[in-house]
C-alpha cells in the first residue's frame, strides 16, 4: 500500500490553485472569497495527514486523486456559475459539501476501522437501502425533471440512492462472501446455466428486484443501471462464473426493453441518443450542445473559461465532463479520465490485497460502482451510450454525491489499512531471513 503521497497531494493542490488563478487572472473572473480556498486546501491536507496518522498502513494515494477530482470539480463549477445570477455561490456550496464529506470520511475512518462488523448487519443494511430509496415516496420526497429521487429535510435536499448503493454493496459483499461456495457449486440448471438453490438466490433477487422496481418507478435510469450492474460484477468476482454476467445482462436487457416500452421518457432518451440532430433545439438540445462543445475543444481545448459549455442544460452536474472536454481538450480530458482510472486501479489493488472474501468483495464493489458510474456518465455525455442522469464522482455539483463518494473512499481506506497491515507483516516475514543471510 502507498503510505506516502505528499508529492501527489502537493501537485493536486497546485493544479487546483493554477486553475483558479487562470480563471481569476486570465478570464478576469471575480475572485471567490479566498477563505473558501483556504478551507478547501486545509480540509484536504488535514484529511491526508489525519489518514496517515490514523491509518498508517492504508493506501493514501486515493486522497490526492480525490483532491484532484474535487479540485477540478470546484474549478469547473466556479467557472460555470460565477457570473450566472442566482447560482453564483454554487462553488462555495460545493466546497462546503466537500468539508462535510471529509468529515464523513473521518467518521468512517474512526468509527468503522473495524468495518467487518458491518457484515454482521448485512440484512439490516439491505433493508436500509430499500428504505432509503423508498423514502422518496414519503411526503419528504420530491421530483426533479420527472425523476422522484430527492429527499428534503428542512432546507437540505439529498439523493438517498447515493447512500442506498453503498449500503447495498456492503450487503452483497457480506452475503456473497458467506454463500460464495454455495453459489459456485450448484446443482440446478436453467437453459444450460447452472443456478444456485432458490433459497440462496432468494435474498439477492429480492433486494435486487425491490431496488430496481423502486428505481424504475423513480425513473432514475442511471442509478438503476448501477444497482443492477455492480451486484452482477460482484457475483462474477465471487464465483468466477461468467454465466451470471450473461444472465444478468440478459435480465437487464429484458428489463430495459420493458421500461422502454412502458415509459415514454425512456423512449425519448433513446431516440435522442440515436439521433439528437433531428431535433437539436428541443429534445436533442442537451446532448447536441454537449457534443458541439466537446468537438469545439479539439485536441488542446478552448482554454479554461473560453468555452461555451454554459449552453448545456445541467452542465454543472451531469454534464460537467463536457466542459472539461471542451475547455481542456482531448489531452486534458484524457488526463482527467486517467485520474479516475488511477483511483479504480488503487481500488482493485486494495481488493486484491485484502485478506478475506468479504473485504475483497467490499473493496471491489465500491470500486466497481465508482468505475461504472464514471463510465456511464462520461459515455452518456459523449453519446457513446444513452444518457442517464447520474453524477460524475467527486466532480459534479451535488451534496449527496460528494458525501457518498467520500464515504466510499473512507471504506476503501479502512479496507486498505487492514490489507496493508497484512501485506506489511508478510513482507516482514520474507525480509527477515534475507537480512539474516546478509
Amino acid at each position, binding site marked *: 500500500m502507498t503510505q506516502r503521497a505528499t508529492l501527489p497531494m502537493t501537485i493536486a493542490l497546485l493544479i487546483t490553485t493554477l486553475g483558479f488563478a487562470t480563471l481569476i487572472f486570465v478570464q478576469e473572473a471575480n475572485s471567490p472569497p479566498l477563505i473558501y480556498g483556504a478551507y478547501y486546501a486545509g480540509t484536504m491536507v488535514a484529511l491526508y495527514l489525519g489518514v496517515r496518522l490514523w491509518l498508517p498502513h492504508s493506501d493514501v494515494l486515493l486522497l490526492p486523486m480525490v483532491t484532484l477530482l474535487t479540485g477540478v470539480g470546484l474549478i469547473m463549477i466556479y467557472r460555470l456559475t460565477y457570473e450566472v445570477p442566482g447560482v453564483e455561490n454554487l462553488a462555495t456550496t460545493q466546497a462546503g459539501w466537500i468539508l462535510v464529506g471529509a468529515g464523513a470520511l473521518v467518521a468512517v475512518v474512526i468509527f468503522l476501522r473495524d468495518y467487518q462488523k458491518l457484515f454482521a448487519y448485512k440484512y439490516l443494511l439491505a433493508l436500509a437501502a430499500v428504505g432509503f430509496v423508498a423514502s422518496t415516496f414519503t411526503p419528504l420526497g420530491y421530483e426533479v425533471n420527472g425523476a422522484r429521487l430527492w429527499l428534503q429535510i428542512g432546507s437540505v435536499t439529498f439523493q438517498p440512492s447515493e447512500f442506498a448503493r453503498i449500503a447495498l454493496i456492503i450487503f452483497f459483499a457480506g452475503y456473497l462472501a458467506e454463500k460464495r461456495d454455495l453459489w459456485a457449486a450448484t446443482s440446478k440448471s436453467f437453459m444450460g446455466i447452472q443456478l444456485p438453490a432458490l433459497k440462496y438466490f432468494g435474498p439477492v433477487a429480492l433486494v435486487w428486484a425491490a431496488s430496481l422496481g423502486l428505481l424504475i418507478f423513480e425513473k432514475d435510469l442511471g442509478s438503476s443501471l448501477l444497482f443492477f450492474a455492480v451486484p452482477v460484477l460482484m457475483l462474477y*468476482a465471487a464465483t468466477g462464473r461468467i454465466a451470471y454476467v450473461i444472465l444478468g445482462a440478459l435480465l437487464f436487457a429484458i428489463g430495459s426493453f420493458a421500461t422502454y416500452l412502458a415509459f415514454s421518457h425512456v423512449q425519448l432518451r433513446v431516440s435522442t441518443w440515436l439521433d439528437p440532430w433531428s431535433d437539436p433545439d428541443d429534445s436533442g438540445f442537451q446532448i447536441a450542445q454537449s457534443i*458541439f*462543445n466537446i*468537438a469545439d475543444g479539439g*485536441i488542446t481545448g478552448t482554454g479554461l473559461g473560453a468555452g461555451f459549455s454554459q449552453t448545456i442544460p445541467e452542465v454543472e452536474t451531469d454534464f460537467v465532463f463536457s466542459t472539461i472536454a471542451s475547455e481542456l481538450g482531448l489531452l486534458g480530458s*484524457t488526463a482527467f479520465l486517467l485520474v479516475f482510472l488511477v483511483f479504480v486501479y488503487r481500488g*482493485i489493488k486494495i481488493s486484491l490485497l485484502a485478506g478475506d472474501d468479504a473485504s475483497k468483495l467490499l473493496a471491489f464493489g465500491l470500486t466497481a460502482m465508482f468505475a461504472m458510474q464514471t463510465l456511464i456518465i462520461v459515455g452518456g455525455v459523449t*453519446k*457513446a451510450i444513452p444518457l442517464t442522469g447520474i453524477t460524475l464522482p467527486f466532480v459534479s455539483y451535488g451534496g449527496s454525491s460528494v458525501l457518498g463518494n467520500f464515504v466510499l473512499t473512507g471504506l476503501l481506506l479502512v479496507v486498505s489499512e487492514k490489507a496493508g497491515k497484512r501485506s506489511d507483516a508478510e513482507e516482514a516475514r520474507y525480509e527477515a531471513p534475507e537480512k539474516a543471510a546478509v
Partner: protein
Amino acid sequence: MNAQLRRTFYLFVAGFVALVGVLAYWQVYARESLATDPANRLQSRRVQEVPRGLILAGDGETEIARSEQDGGGGTYSRVYPEGPLYAGVTGYWSTKYGASGLEISQNNNLSGAGEPETLDELINQFSGGPQAGNDVELTLDPELQRLAYDGLASSSTGRGAVVALNPKNGEILSLVSYPSFDPNDIDENFEELAQDPNFPLVNRATQGLYPPGSTFKVITAAAALKAGVKTSDKFKDNGTYETPGYTVYNYRAKEYGQQTFEQALANSVNTIFARIGNEKVGAEALAQKAEDFGFYDPYEDFALPIAPSFFNPPPEQWDQGNIAQSSFGQQTVSSTVFEMANVAGAIANGGTMMQPRLVREVRSPDGAIIDKPTSSVHSRALDEETAGTLTDMMEAAVTQVEKGAEIPGVKVAGKTGTAEAPGGELHSWFISFAPADDPEIAVAVMIENGQEGYKQALPLARRLMEAHLRKEGELPNEAPSPPPAQPQGETTQPGAQPARPQNEGPSQFPFQNPFRSPDQAPGKAPAQNPNQPPGQPPNQPPGQPPNQPQGQPPNQRPGG
C-alpha cells in the same frame, strides 16, 4: 477470486480507452463537420467574443479593418475605417449575413481559430487566454487604391474595376470595384445592397466577366508571333474581312490600307486581326495562348475567389466567324479585369506571369511573423523574346496612337479596348505597364459602358502608373505637367474631356441602337486622331452572326 478482479479491471480499462476513442472521434475526426453544423451556434458566439485581427494596407499602417470592443459586453464588432474604399477586397463580416472577401478567405488567420502557430498562442489556448486573431498585411498601396477608387467613382457610368499589380513579384497594388458598399453598415443595408441593380456587392474586378475587346489582341498577337508572324509583315486592309456568314468591319468602318503587323495592333485593326486569327493562328493555338495567359484558371492560390475567364462557345466548336471575332476579344471571349491585369503583367515580366498576391504577411498580435508568402512563378505565358517583341508593339501603340497614355520620361506599353457590351454601351478598357523596359506596374482598367478605351479607362490607368512611378522615384516628385492631351483632373463628363474635343460624349455616341449590326465595325482607331471627327453612326441592318452566344445582343464591334 483475484483472477476475476483483474479481469474486471481490464474491462474497466477497456471502457476508459473506449471513452478516449469516442472523445477523439468528436474532437478530432468529426470536429470540422460539427463546427459547421447549422445547429451549432458556438462559432458565431466565439466570433463576437474574440477580437479579429487587423487588415492593414501595404504601407503597414493604414488600418483597413479592425475589431473594436463594444461597450462592456466583452464582444467585439468589426470596424472598417476606410469605409467602401477596400470593401471589394475585405468583403464584409456580419453575424447576420455571413462574410465575404478576405474576411472569409483569411478567416483562419483573422479569427485566430486555426491551430496555434506560436508558443504564445499555445499557452493562450491552454490557459484560456483570449486568442486574438492574427493581423493580415496586404500588398495594396493606399494611394493607388484611393486614386483608382476616385477615378472609377468619377467615371461616366460610375461602374467599373481596376487592378494594378507589380509584374515582377505579383503583388497587387490596387484592386477596386465600383460601385462599392460600406461594410460598416452591412447589417442595416444588406437587403438593399443585394437588390441594387448596380450590384455593389459583386466584386467586378475578380468576379465580373466582360468581353475584353481589343485588349485581347495582345493575346492574339502573342499567338501570331509564335506562329511566325513578324512585326514588319504587311497586311492589307480594305475595311472588311469576310468569313462564311460573318463580315468583320473596322471600328467606325475605317479603312487602313497597307499596315504592318505592329501598326495593325497600334491602330487596332479588326479585319487584320480577324485574318491573322483565321489564317495564321487558328482556333486551337489562339485558345491555347489564352490559356497560357490564365484563361480557364481560377487562380486558386489567390486570396479572393476569381471567376475564370473563358470562351463560349468553346474553341472546338468555332467556325471562321467565331475565330475572327475571338481574335479581337469579342463574342466568345469573357474575361475579368483581374485576368487582363495579369496578362499585361506577364508580358511586362518577360512572358512570366508571377503568382498574383494580395497578402504580404500574416503576423500574430505580438508581431511574430506567421506567414510571409514569397513571390513565385505562376506560369510562363511567353518566351522572353516574344514578350520583348510584344512589349515593343504595345509601346508603339502608345507612342503612335494612344498618345494620351504617354508619361514624359518613361516608356509606356499599352493597349486600349472598346468592347461591344451585351445589351449596352461599349466597355472602356485599357491594359498597360510602365516603364516598358523595366516594368514596375501593370494596370488593367475597365469602365462598364464607358465607351472607347482611350476616353475613360486610359486616363485612369495613366494616372495610376504615374502616381506609382513617382512614388518609386522613377519620376520627379513634383507633378509633371500632364501632356496636353490628358488632363489630370477627373472628369465626370466624358464628353467634356478637353483633350479630345472632337469626340462626342456618350449621348451622341451611336451605339444605343439595340439592333446593332454585326457587320458594323465602327472604326475606333481613326477616331483616336483628335483631328478627325468620329465616323458616322453605322446603320446597317442587323444580321445574326452564327454561333452567337445566347442572350448577347447580336453584334460585336470592338475597337481598339
